[in-house]
């Protein structure tokens, strides 16, 4: 079992390495570099050459890549394009804020998704199922900016119950974000819940139709016990992977939410970094985000491994 875990971790590390190569390579291939962004119209001739020497941009690509990776491991990503702030400091706050948003959404979304998905499957094709399923489809298909806009209109514009925009600054303490964070969390979790719910529901339905649940029924097992002991453990296994995938999606989807609500998170930082051609910042953000994604997937893999008796036992027991 440990061998498998180790293998997974190594594969994860490999993925991050490949990602870093992709990021670095992509940025390399784009026309322009930190100096052209910094100097803009002055970027030519001697000024450009001097700038490049100062920033070490005239070193060969492999050397620069290694410098960057070494710095990344240490947590040092250099300075922003405007040379006025350390990238790591800037990112630190934003990362904290985005994580706050994401974790709140998870805390709200995952339990409701499971509860609703299970309930919908158990009451298949009755009104509860139809309502929940339709709402899920609606939440999944409507773009986040649409649902965000609508919610702001209703809850902030017309009813005035909640603030429609986040005014706290990036380095504000966590408590400053409530209650402004409520609407963004709602929108985020809506989409998440919808995806997870659908998977949970279809997984439940599949298990409910299985031979072993039929056998349990014919053994005379009572309904509640059957759901708890025979159905749920088998149905929820595949859901672990979907939760991981949805978390991964969160990392991208959060950008739109942050823009709509003016939330000072990593997503908005990324957009402004790209607009500003602050490539160092972009690289750093991309690396962090994909590392988080790989970590999440790894945990999901490990959790699946532990939860699934088939995988667990074939590794530990010798026949």
């Amino acid at each position: 079992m440990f061998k498998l875990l180790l293998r997974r971790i190594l594969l994860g590390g490999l993925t991050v390495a490949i990602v870093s190569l992709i990021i670095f390579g992509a940025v390399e291939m784009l026309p322009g570099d930190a100096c052209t962004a910094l100097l803009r119209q002055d970027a030519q001739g001697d000024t450009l050459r001097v700038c490049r020497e100062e920033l070490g941009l005239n070193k060969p690509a492999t050397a620069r890549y290694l410098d960057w990776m070494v710095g990344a491991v240490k947590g040092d990503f250099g300075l922003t394009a405007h040379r006025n702030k350390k990238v790591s400091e800037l990112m630190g706050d934003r990362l904290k804020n985005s994580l706050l948003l994401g974790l709140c959404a998870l805390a709200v979304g995952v339990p409701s998704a499971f509860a609703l998905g299970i309930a919908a499957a158990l009451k298949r094709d009755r009104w509860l199922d139809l309502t929940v399923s339709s709402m899920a489809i609606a939440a999944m298909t409507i773009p986040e900016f649409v649902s965000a806009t609508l919610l702001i209109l209703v809850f902030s514009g017309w009813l005035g119950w909640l603030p429609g925009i986040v005014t706290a600054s990036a380095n504000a303490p966590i408590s400053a974000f409530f209650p402004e964070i409520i609407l963004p969390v709602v929108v985020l979790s809506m989409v998440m819940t919808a995806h997870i719910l659908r998977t949970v529901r279809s997984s439940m339905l599949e298990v409910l139709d299985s031979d072993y649940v039929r056998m349990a029924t014919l053994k005379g097992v009572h309904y509640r016990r059957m759901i708890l002991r025979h159905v749920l453990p088998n149905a929820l296994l595949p859901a672990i992977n979907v939760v991981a995938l949805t978390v991964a999606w969160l990392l991208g989807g959060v950008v739109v939410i942050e823009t709509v609500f003016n939330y000072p998170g990593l997503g908005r930082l990324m957009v402004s970094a790209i607009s500003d051609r602050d490539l160092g910042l972009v690289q750093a953000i991309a690396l962090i985000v994909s590392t988080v994604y790989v970590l999440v997937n790894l945990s999901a893999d490990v959790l699946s491994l532990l939860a699934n008796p088939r995988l667990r036992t074939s590794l530990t027991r010798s026949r």
Partner: protein
Amino acid sequence: MRALFQILKEVAARPSGAVGLGLVLLHILIALSSPWVVPYDFKAISAMDILTPPDAKHWFGTDQMGRDVLTRTLLGGREALLVTAIATPLAVFWGGLLGIYLGLVGGRRDDIIMRIVDAFLSLPWILKMLLLIVTFGNGIHVLIPTLAFFYGIPVIRIARAAAHTVVARDYVLAARARGEKRITIIRRELLPNVLDALMVEGAMRWSWMLLAFSSLSFLGFGVSPPTPDWGLMVADSRTFLPLAPWAGLFPIVFLSSLIIGINMLADALAKTLGVDRAQKAPI
């Protein structure tokens, strides 16, 4: 072609399919005919008529620059539909081919390419697209290949999984045992059986692409003003939304109805073809 028509007929026989197909066709019709039907010029600014509610002169009201919302809404889907209608088949084509090939060949090549695919998928979609757009501009000639490339990657996964189930079948073994060439096996044995899954996936991709497109426009990275686009219109309307909700609500209704229509169509297609639609997060 005959088979396609047959499938569409069966899809239309289902209630969700009929509604979905209807919505999609309606939107296509609007997109195609709107330039000749709209009452106003979409660029026409009028300082006097800003933010007027819907009335006889302006059925959908006007926005904060006095432009007629009905006109802009009817025209708003054109660019989105054009871009996505071209990019979707491209994405499914290249992702599908590569996925089928990997599913058949397996081995070292498969491992390496899937590692790279995983790495790509670990980057948030918006990052990837923004990088390219910001560098190369946001014209159609950038948007179409960008969307086609990035949205083709998840198709690789789906096609590969579908190919895996087919490759294990005895009829593929039989073809191999006969000595058929690999390309013949792909074309004759794999492709027809994988096509179902790809069709459903194609419909889903279209809907995700529209979502992405309108989100990009919303953020200001898609269509450039003053070209009308639903995402852009929603973004523009935000400031005054409580006062003049019509400026944002109509584009929202149009956009949502199209996306829901495509999803219902995809659902009905999946049920008709017997494909299990694994729910995956977009990109």
